[in-house]
Structures are given as C-alpha cells and as structure tokens.
C-alpha cells in the first residue's frame, strides 16, 4: 500500500517531465514569433488610434476625406466581391466540368494574380487602358473614363482577387460527382434548378469563404490602386491610399484610426471565413 502511494506521488511529476520541457520551449518560440510579428504591431496600431480617446478616433474617421475614402473602399470592395462570387464560381465550374483546348492556359491565368506584384498590376492596366494607348484612345473618344477613375479601381481589384473564389470553390466542386447533376437533369430539372438544388447547397460555404476573402483583400489593396485611381480626395481616393497620405503628411493618429476600421472589418471577416466556414483539417 505504501509503495503504491509513493509511486502515485512520484509519477505525475516524472510524467510531466517526459518531453514537456521541449514542448514548452517550442510553444514559447511560436507564441513569441506570432506575438512579436503580429500582435505587437497591432497593439501599437490600436494604442495610437485611441491615444486621444474614442472621440479622437471617431473624429479622425468622420472627417469628410476619411469618410469618403472608407465609403469608396467599402462599396467597390462589395461590388468586386459580388462580381467575383458569380464569375469565380462560373469559372471554377467550367474548369472542373469541361475539357476544352486552352483550358490549361486559362487555369494558369487564374493563378497569375497570385504571382504578379500588385504595383505591376496597376502598371499593366495603365499600359492597357491608359490615355496613351490605342484602347485608351478609343475609350476616351467614346467618353468612357476608366484609368484615373472609379472603374480602374474595380478592374484592379477584380484582377488581384481573381484566384480567391475560383480556387476555394474548385476543390469542393471536384468532390461533387457529376452524376448528381446528371441524375437531376434526367429527372427533368432545369439547369437553374440544378444549380439551386444540387450544387449550391454543397458549394455555398466555399463560395462564401472565397467571397469574404475577396472583400477583405479588396479593402486593403494598395499597390495597384495607388497608381491608377488618380487619388483625388473625396472622389477616387480609397482608404488605404488615404492612410498612406495621412502617414506622409505626419498624422499617424488619423492614419491609425482609419486603419483600425479597415483592419477590424477585414480581419474579422477573414478569420470568420477561414476558421468557421471552412472545415479545417486540424
């Protein structure tokens, strides 16, 4: 009896010491890595935004320029998210279900925005549609202003976010047996009914994840927008460009306040999409 009591007292500590010192070390390294690189900068941002109190932060956000910039960023982001959801789902469906010449090229093009630096994206759009190009000339002659106007912002955002919906929907779609669609068709369902009743129920989480990520990504886009939107305050200046301007003119507090709005919305949506909607293997 005494012996078993002794082991009961001794073993728990021995058990803990097995390899847990190594584990704790690795946990601390991880927490340090993510804490120093991610949490600390965000803390500094929050602290600066609210250093003049909540009212100070609100004052910076409701200034006419800031309000216009945030509004422009939100509605262009929303529009791009909706367009991306529709066209991205269609693209994913065509890439999964059809074999056609040039399919591999289209598939590669979908991934290219991942690789192209965003500043280069902006430059590409200027070279395609800018005032000195033939296409830009033609558009100008017909009274269509794209570059240095709001359509340019939308175009740039569509470009940089293209892969997001396509690449989240595609793997889920590949898991769905085409026989399900075919059997629905033999039962007399119209293509729209098939999408609504067969595909959409299985696809909507993936579409939602892609759409929310598109929106979050669009809110923060800077490199491509800054060189093609014209950056007219209250007209074509987006929130990230506005923040950049505030930093350059030495108003870190105003910049931080507007940043907090952007960060709160996009981080919340992104984390929600990644960790709630998408079934994670962990």
């Amino acid at each position, binding site marked *: 009896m005494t012996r078993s009591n002794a082991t009961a007292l001794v073993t728990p500590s021995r058990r803990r010491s097995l390899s847990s010192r190594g584990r704790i070390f690795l946990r601390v390294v991880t927490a340090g890595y993510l804490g120093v690189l991610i949490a600390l900068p965000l803390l*500094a941002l929050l602290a600066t935004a609210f250093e003049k109190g909540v009212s100070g932060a609100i004052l910076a956000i409701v200034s006419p320029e800031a309000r216009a910039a945030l509004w422009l960023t939100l509605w262009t982001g929303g529009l791009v998210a909706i367009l991306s959801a529709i066209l991205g789902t269609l693209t994913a469906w065509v890439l999964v279900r059809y074999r056609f010449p040039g399919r591999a090229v*289209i598939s590669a*093009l979908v991934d*290219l925005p991942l690789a192209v*630096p965003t500043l*280069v994206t902006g430059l590409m759009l200027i070279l395609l549609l800018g005032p000195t190009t033939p296409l830009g000339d033609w558009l100008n002659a017909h009274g269509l202003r794209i570059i240095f106007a709001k359509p340019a912002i939308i175009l740039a955002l569509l470009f940089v976010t293209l892969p997001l919906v396509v690449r989240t929907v595609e793997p889920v779609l590949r898991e769905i047996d085409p026989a399900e669609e075919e059997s629905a068709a033999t039962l007399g369902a119209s293509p729209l009914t098939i999408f609504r009743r067969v595909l959409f129920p299985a696809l909507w989480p993936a579409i939602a994840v892609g759409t929310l990520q598109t929106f979050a990504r669009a809110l923060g886009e800077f490199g491509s927008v800054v060189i093609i939107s014209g950056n007219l305050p209250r007209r074509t200046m987006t929130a990230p460009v506005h*923040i950049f301007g505030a930093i350059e003119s030495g108003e870190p507090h105003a910049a931080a306040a507007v940043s907090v709005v952007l*960060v709160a919305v996009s981080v919340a949506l992104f984390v929600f999409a990644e960790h709630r909607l998408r079934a994670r293997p*962990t």
Partner: protein
Amino acid sequence: MTTPLRRRVLIGVVVVWVVFLVGAPIIALTVGAFSSGFGAVLEALSATDSVSALAFSLALATIAVAVNTVFGTIAAWVLTRDRFRGRTILLASVDIPFAISPVVVGLCFILLFGPHGWFGPWLKAAGIQIVFSWPAMALATVFVSLPFVVREVSLALVEAGTDEEDAARTLGASSLAVFWRITLPNIRAGLLNGVLLTSARALGEFGAVLVVSGGIAELAETGTLFVFRALDDRRDVAAYAMALALAAITMAILGALFVVRRRAAHSPVRTREVLR
C-alpha cells in the same frame, strides 16, 4: 446534361473574362516594355540602380524566407501536433497578415520603431536605426509573407498524420531523430510550397515597404519601389523593364510551384482526376 450550345457559351464567357482580365494586361506590359526595343529593356535592367534594386529585393526575400521557414515550421508543428490553451487564438492570428492592408502593416512598424514610436526613443539612444532603413523593410516583408510556410506545413503535417512518427519512436528514435528522419521528409513538398509562395510574395511587396522606407530617395530601393519612383520621374522604359522583370521572376516561382505540386500529388488523387 449540357447542350453543345450552352457548353460553348459558358466556356466562351469564362475564356473572355479571364483572358481580358489577366491576359490582356500582361500582354500590354510586355508590349509596352519592348515598344522601345529589346535593347532598351536590357540596358535599363543592367543600369546600376536597377541591378542594386533587384539585388535588394532578393536580399529581403531571402531574409523573409529564412525567418519564416525556421519559425513557420516550428509554429506549424506546435499548432498541429501540440494541444494547449490559447492554441486557437494563435491559429487564427496566423492568417491576419493576409487580411491587413500593406499600408497598415507599414504604419504599424512606424508606430513601433519610428522616432515617436514605442521603441523610438530607446532605439535612438542606442543608436539603432530601424524605420527608414533596411531592418524595417525586412520586418515588413517578413510580416506580409508570414502565413505561407505555417499554412502549407500545417496542411502537410495534418496529412502526414502521426503514425509514422509514433512508429519511429517505438523503434528507438529520439524526438530530434524523428523530426529529421521522418517528419521532415514527409512535409518536404509542403515546405517547398511555402518557401516558394513566401519568396514570390516577398519580391512583390510594395505598400508596406514604401511606408517604412519613408520615401527617402538615397535609401536602398527594392524592385517595386524602383518602379514607383521611375514612373514618378517619367523614366517609363526603366519602370516597364523592372516591372516586367519582377513579374517574370514571380511567375517563374509560381511555375516552379506547380511542378512541385504536380510531383507531390498522390497517385490516387491523380487517377481520380484522370477518371473525371
């Protein structure tokens, strides 16, 4: 279920959409860059400032890859193999860099290390320059490219499972031996994926680096900053040439990524794709 006509219309819509949105701009850049001749592009790229900008970009990318590979692999291991309180918060925080505007990233580092920042006075007293210098640019680059290795390696770890590691331990391998001889070979493809994505993202970073560099012209420039300033100075050929070079490098990295992915794809998956 799809009539030939519907099939043709749907494919047509997608092809036109993707080609116009992505293909046309890339062609426009290529044409624009070479409009003043192949020689002009080469000349612009071999100018001293172009070469040093590209080299600086590569140096920053190397730092980002090194830091994020070592710590990202550790973080991935801890987040998938270990269980402890606070794990879910760490897991969610990994994705934050994807959701934050690069400009805001730059701002955060200025607020930390700038002259009026949290550590500003202390750094000044110690004579260390971070903001408006390369350390802040490196930090910003590390930040924006942080999630890739963690995510890719996490996925690889989950997919590899723990059975082989357990088997190796019962066979007498120490934790370190298990990692080097079993875990690492199993996550090799995921790690390489992560490294390639990290380097592509790091080379293309613009907003965060622009903010922390403070727009000081004498400073070392990255490739993207070079393009931005060259456009401002109306040195169009130089800007186009550098943009093309950056796009080519990052696209080559993406190409390598596809080769890795195709090789790593398990045979059952591939058969299933063929069967479809």
